């Protein structure tokens, strides 16, 4: 029992073990749910559900929401599960720590919460906007699409990292 327990409570697993695990997980989602792993659609649906609460049912008539119905669905449940799973993993390794500013950011830009949060919100808006423009994120395109060898997903995944590498380099090496 002890070795099993050690694995569960370890704070980090080999990235290859994790990658192979995600690959096998994708077999199961295709087989049992006829669905690929994907996350960003759930954010679009959440945005639609919130907008519907604030502005009423006419929101559902927007062209985008006619194509992506703002309601809880398989992918939304997947994201809810993702949160619980990450929480369980962090709890078992006693890795839950409240953190306002990541240590790497703090080392370069200081511990000012307002600056970090403003940057994070701007970045997040770009991530959400870009993910929907490109019809997928690092999960839907970066893992599920690429493993099916889909051209649009490989192009998207390359652009995610190209944009990210250039931006991170500008922020940390030039600014």
């Amino acid at each position, binding site marked *: 029992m002890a070795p099993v327990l050690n694995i569960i409570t370890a704070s980090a697993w080999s990235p290859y073990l994790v990658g192979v695990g*995600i690959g096998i*997980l994708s077999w199961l989602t295709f087989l049992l749910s006829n669905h690929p792993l994907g996350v960003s659609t759930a954010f679009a649906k959440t945005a639609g559900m919130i907008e519907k609460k604030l502005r009423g049912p006419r929101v559902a008539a927007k062209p985008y929401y006619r194509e992506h119905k703002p309601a809880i669905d398989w992918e939304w449940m997947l994201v809810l599960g993702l949160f619980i799973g990450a929480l369980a993993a962090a709890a078992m390794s006693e890795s839950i720590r409240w953190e306002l500013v990541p240590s790497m950011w703090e080392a370069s830009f200081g511990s000012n919460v307002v600056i970090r949060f403003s940057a994070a919100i701007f970045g997040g808006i770009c991530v959400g906007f870009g993910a929907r423009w490109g019809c997928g994120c690092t999960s839907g395109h970066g893992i599920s699409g690429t493993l099916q060898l889909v051209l649009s997903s490989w*192009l998207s995944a390359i652009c995610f990292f190209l944009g990210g590498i250039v931006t991170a380099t500008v922020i940390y090496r030039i600014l």
Partner: protein
Amino acid sequence: MTELKFHNLHNRKYLQYGLALIFGFVFGFLLQKGRVCYYDVILGQLLLEDFTVLKVMLSAIVTGMIGIYAMKAAGWVKLHKKSGSLGTSLPGPLIFGVGFGILGYCPGTSVGAVAHGSLDALIGGVFGITVGAGLYAAVYPRLEKVLEIGSFGDRTLIDLFRARNPWLLIVPFAALIILGLILIEIMGL
């Protein structure tokens, strides 16, 4: 078309919600254990100092690819391919990339980061990404023309290289990725 292996499960709504919750749990558990829900690890990848993210993604791609194409050959699963065009697959993902570099999380890992207590992932990630997705829904009708530019459909690399047998592409491609990973290890990244 013949029916998929577990087609009788696919239309059972609440069973599927339960399965999605379990699949999500495993996904989140793995992302956290792989340390890819940490800003420092993701930025380490984007600064090309720490290759954890790429190691996770590439080993998932190799594993997933072989299993999915094997099950497809057996008629057990069908592919879920997204169509693309130059107007969708370049600008959208590049904007995503810029945001990725600033936020330091992607949609899935921001949810995972909140779970271990990162509040910038809650405000910037979960809240910011939702706002961004909502903004996109607002401007979507005006982008219609741009989205159609250079459409190439849902073709795969197998179609692109005109491989008669998918394995003629999958096997060398998997070998190439594994070789790349070995190289990364040799270089100590």
